[in-house]
């Protein structure tokens, strides 16, 4: 990740991450204590083991308070806010994001609501290319089998309906190494091109959602270039705040990440990076307003009257993360270490496994569930998740992983096949008790001879 400075700092000052800074603002004289962290997240519902930071993210109280100040400014005098404050503040956020992700130029950074919106922007651009004859009917778009459902729908809406075809590349799971992913991707892409189709766009996750795994995007982007794929769009919804991000190094044409998942912003805000090139100048925000034609970043900064406050808090978030030892890098390392430790603890307790090696886990890990729970469909997975929420106050998403082959697959210590995985997250507010609560919930289910079949029959 590009260097993050406290936004008030003087560039000429040397800064050592471990040096306790002399306070420029009186209150920030040392790192946050456990108790202060607890207070920052005191609005989280008591009694819930909240181990799903991945889905909706989280936001500390001091950022929420900063957001309310911006909201109040609008309510006090909206015209003044619109004319005199909003554009400068959005530019301020964009500039800090540019540094965060090591982009070359702030014009490459747009702020949008979420990764879903970014996908619509990129795919609508592809849709126009089909309609206006720049792409031919049958030209292809590549996606991963486990792409986020909303992105799949967006591909259907803008590509398939415009006459494009879709190449689906299956990635292995459980997975043991980057090499497995790279070779599967190479094979899948080559197979998809067999009939001579032109591949116009590849959409690759940086961290897949379900099952969650860090994808070696740099290598995959390289393969795309070698295979003649025109453009690559990296859907990195989870990445900022959980793994280092260097967009130049990754080399994609488009890169999107949510900032409300792992970067402590309130719902919702995402960055969309578009590498400067003649092709990217034709991207438009689908909600067309006064700024149409002035470039995507400027278009996205005004899409009609709405609450833009969540987009204005990047400076405050940077201050917040710098109150942790090691700043955002320290947070990322600690989260990663903790989630692996907890994942191993759970796997040991249940006699199961992790879905990927630790180095392929960000701040989330896929932990195999005991086979006797009987997660045998997506419905089972959702039902089990609801059951855990309602009966045990544990919030954790469950993934159903069908076996590739009826005879072969990962087994638990009772030799049953593992087809269910829990995607556990670790963020700064989590404690070991959250995971012990989950461990005990599953132990109780096992003790009671529970199986997902029981939830399905209850529904009928």
């Amino acid at each position: 990740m590009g260097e993050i400075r406290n936004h008030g700092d003087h560039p000429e000052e040397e800064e050592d991450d471990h040096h306790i800074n002399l306070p420029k603002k009186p209150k920030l004289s040392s790192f946050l204590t456990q108790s202060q962290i607890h207070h920052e997240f005191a609005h989280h519902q008591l009694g819930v083991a909240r181990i799903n930071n991945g889905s909706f993210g989280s936001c500390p109280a001091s950022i929420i308070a900063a957001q309310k100040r911006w909201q109040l400014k609008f309510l006090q005098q909206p015209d003044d806010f619109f004319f005199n404050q909003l554009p400068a503040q959005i530019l301020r956020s964009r500039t800090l994001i540019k540094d965060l992700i090591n982009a070359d130029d702030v014009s490459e950074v747009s702020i949008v609501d979420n990764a879903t919106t970014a996908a619509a922007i990129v795919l609508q651009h592809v849709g126009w290319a089909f309609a206006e004859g720049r792409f031919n009917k049958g030209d292809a778009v590549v996606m991963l089998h486990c792409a986020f459902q909303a992105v799949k729908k967006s591909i259907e809406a803008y590509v398939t309906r415009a006459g494009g075809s879709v190449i689906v590349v299956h990635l292995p799971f459980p997975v043991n190494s980057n090499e497995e992913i790279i070779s599967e991707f190479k094979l899948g892409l080559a197979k998809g091109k067999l009939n001579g189709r032109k591949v116009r766009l590849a959409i690759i996750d940086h961290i897949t959602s379900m099952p969650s795994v860090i994808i070696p995007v740099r290598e995959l982007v390289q393969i795309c270039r070698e295979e003649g794929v025109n453009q690559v769009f990296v859907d990195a919804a989870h990445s900022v705040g959980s793994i280092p991000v260097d967009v130049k190094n990754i080399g994609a044409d488009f890169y999107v990440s949510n900032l409300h998942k792992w970067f402590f912003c309130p719902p919702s805000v995402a960055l969309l990076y578009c590498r400067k090139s003649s092709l990217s100048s034709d991207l438009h925000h689908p909600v067309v307003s006064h700024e149409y034609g002035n470039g995507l970043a400027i278009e996205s900064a005004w899409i009609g009257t709405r609450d833009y406050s969540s987009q204005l808090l990047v400076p405050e978030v940077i201050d917040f993360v710098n109150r942790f030892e090691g700043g955002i890098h320290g947070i990322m390392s600690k989260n990663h270490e903790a989630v692996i430790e907890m994942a191993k603890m759970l796997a040991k307790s249940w006699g199961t496994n992790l879905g990927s090696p630790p180095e392929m886990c960000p701040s989330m890990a896929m932990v195999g569930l005991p086979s006797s729970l009987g997660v045998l469909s997506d419905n089972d997975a959702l039902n089990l998740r609801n059951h855990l929420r309602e009966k045990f106050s544990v919030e954790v998403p469950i993934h159903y992983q069908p076996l590739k082959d009826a005879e072969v697959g990962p087994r638990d210590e009772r030799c049953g096949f593992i087809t269910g995985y829990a995607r556990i997250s670790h963020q700064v507010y989590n404690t070991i008790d959250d995971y012990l609560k989950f461990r005990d919930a599953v132990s109780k289910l096992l003790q009671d001879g529970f199986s997902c079949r029981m939830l399905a029959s209850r529904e009928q």
Partner: protein
Amino acid sequence: MSSDNHDRDDESNGATATTDKLSPMDLRSEFSHHDPTVARINNGSFGSCPSSVIEAQQRYQLRFLQQPDDFYYNHLKPSILRSRQAIKTLINAGHVDEISIVDNATTGAAIVLQHVKWCFFQSKFNPGDTAVMLHYAYGAVKKSVEAYVTRAGGHVIEVNMPFPIASDDDIITAFKNALELGKSDNRKVRLAVIDHITSMPSVVIPVKELVKMCRDEGVDCIFVDAAHAIGSIEVDVQEIGADFYTSNLHKWLFCPPSIAFLHCRNPEVPNLHHPVVSHEYGNGIAIESSWIGTRDYSAQLVVPEALEFINRFEGGLDGIRKWNHQKVIEMAEMLVKIWCTNLGTPLDMCSSMAMVGLPACLGIMSDSDALTLRSHLRDCYKVEVPIYYRQPKDGEVDPVTGYARISHQIYNTINDYYRLRDAICNLVSSGFTCKVFQD
């Protein structure tokens, strides 16, 4: 000037908070977050929201932050449905399926115009077929028409109407001519974009008549952009009869930023989708719009609370509309009398806004002058009011080229308009003209 006709009887009976009529003190308290030093006579641009509705919104925001998964799975959908049902009743729609909630009218327009784009793509419409819209259509909507209709092969015809305007007839005639032009050379008029209340200059348009004309002509898609309508004039979508009708609830209906509805007479028409495609794609425009990825939906959930607030005003929404209209006319007439100018429209073509001619000697000669004068009024007099530049016709002597679009909402007091009056008089007496902005 604020509601001094509250009902004291309710209070002395010890009625519960929700049926208590708003006293002047309540009203001041509900809008105490407004900058007290500013004469805020521009409710039209960004609207306003009472603190009790903001508090309701914050309660929803907190629930999401407390347990977002639970909120998403168990509370969000029913809460959005509740808002949609309230809107359906408010606008006399036939069925709740016809009501989608979106961010704002700009988004509503994008949905409709993208639908039109697909009709061109699929050759339901032919290249060169026409789209008719008012010359005074909102800038963002014009851009959207360019982005989706012109780009897809449509040809745009603007309806020129005079301003100042004398009556509905001026508009109806101009519109008729535009439809004729749109049909000429074997073309078909595929889309009509009709404002219910134009933004700048602000005029109430006879939409019912125009929609009927479009129906009689067989226009395929009739879209009413009514951004300002709900809360300032009566809205009955069945009576108006358009295919699509969108209005913002954060302008005149006391909702926080931002929320609008898009009414679709036939929500199942093909190719009608929210442009931000998510999991609900294909489940109908209303359901698609209710989930477009993780974001703060709280502004969309407080329609019932906004209506509760409205019902604390004497006469409810009807009372508020009448009051605002009466007051804005009164203030507009006070100003034209002092400045010796004119209104831009007859009284019955004003909503809760009125176009008040500014003294010609101010020398407003361009859109840029109008914007700079607006900033000047904000910075030097703390008066917030948008200014419209009207290009004079050849031969006009001492033309009125600038109009202030004054708004009246229930928080306004007569003082707000005295301050505008005095600011302008001050500029006039000091010999000010917009020429100074060129230096």
